């Protein structure tokens, strides 16, 4: 439950953002991360950006999530 997802901010109006994670787009707020800008990669948890994150780190987490999803699809 405490796994935050890296996502890129693709729309930003005030503290309301649309983010993109692995091709999925969803709403998120930047209330807790006021420095976040359009185009930034952020960690999103329960609908809120909680930290900036760099590209390399984001890729590692996306890969981990993809692996877990893949495993779940095949085995569970």
């Amino acid at each position, binding site marked *: *439950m*405490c*796994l935050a997802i890296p996502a890129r901010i693709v729309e930003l109006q005030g503290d309301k953002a649309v983010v993109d994670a692995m091709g999925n787009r969803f709403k998120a707020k930047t209330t807790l991360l006021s420095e976040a800008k359009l185009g930034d990669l952020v960690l999103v948890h*329960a*609908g809120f950006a909680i*930290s900036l994150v760099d590209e390399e780190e984001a890729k590692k987490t996306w890969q981990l999530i993809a692996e877990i999803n893949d495993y779940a699809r095949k085995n569970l």
Partner: protein
Amino acid sequence: MLERIYKAQTLMDSACKALGRQINVMEVCGTHTVSIFRNGINTTLPKDLKLLSGPGCPVCVTDQGYIDVVLKLAERDDCLIATYGDMIRVPGTEGSLETKHTGGNVKVVLSSEDALQLAKDNPEKTIVFVAVGFETTAPATAVAVKEAAAENIDNFCVLSGHKLVVPAMRTLLSQKNHNIDAFLCPGHVSVIIGFGAFAEIVEQFGRPCVVAGFEPMQIIEGLGEICRQLAEDTAEVKSMYTAVVTEQGNTVAQKIIAECFEPVDGWWRGLGKIERSTLKLKDKYSRFDAFNRFDITETPGEDISGCRCGEVLCGLIEPPQCSLFGKSCTPDGPVGPCMVSSEGACSAWFKYKRERRRQ
């Protein structure tokens, strides 16, 4: 990469040799538990280095008494329960939200903002947001409460069961029969609270606290660092997850939590009552506090099912030592919360260890 693995392994071997006994490291994060099992990290460690899955899954630590309150509110026609999906299957004394209320009284939401939107869309109902989770989730609840106050959305309220990680760690180390040598500390909780938050554990109990991310290399190097400290008979706070975890954490989030909530004594499954471990809405937001609004209190639940999740959460037993494990308690038909949640220790054991045995 291999070099980094060898280095960590050498540190682990040295620690096992130096201590000459079993070393117990507890991870306090459900996502670590899943990553450890999923990647088979537990099978690559020296035989004297044992990983214990601690109270790191918010669903698992939520007391049965809290679930009973949720179930009671779900029976009311004037209420709409908004909950994260993880909580739907957690059993209370009589059933779960899934088995008891499949009707329209329960809505799964992905964020506190969705719950607030439900309140705007359903003015004739009172929306009760089932606010569980550690410090990563609490600020999201706080933001929604502040917005509800600013916009006077009076049909929104919060049943706060938010928990704090550090008091639970302190409680575990205060138990006489504990066997914990060090903690592998949660990654994304630490994004909020900062790795500096674990300094008090190190100072008070002399146990290493190392923050790691979730990919295998982070966990392996985190364990390596813990072993280095144990071999050198020292205890420090360290973060291996420097990409996103700072010493201070997200201070904006901390301020919002402090503005809306105060820590009070609270009940944890398996751990009992822990002082100042649960977040309660402050008086100025009491009109959004579901406990106040419906004048209800949480009575700590007594588990009579024979489920031993409590001992699993304290690292005292491993899941297969529970007589229900894999028999009457499976992910399809769970009895205890550690089997319900995909991040629970029992669920991870069932899915991944069983899989390994088959191969």
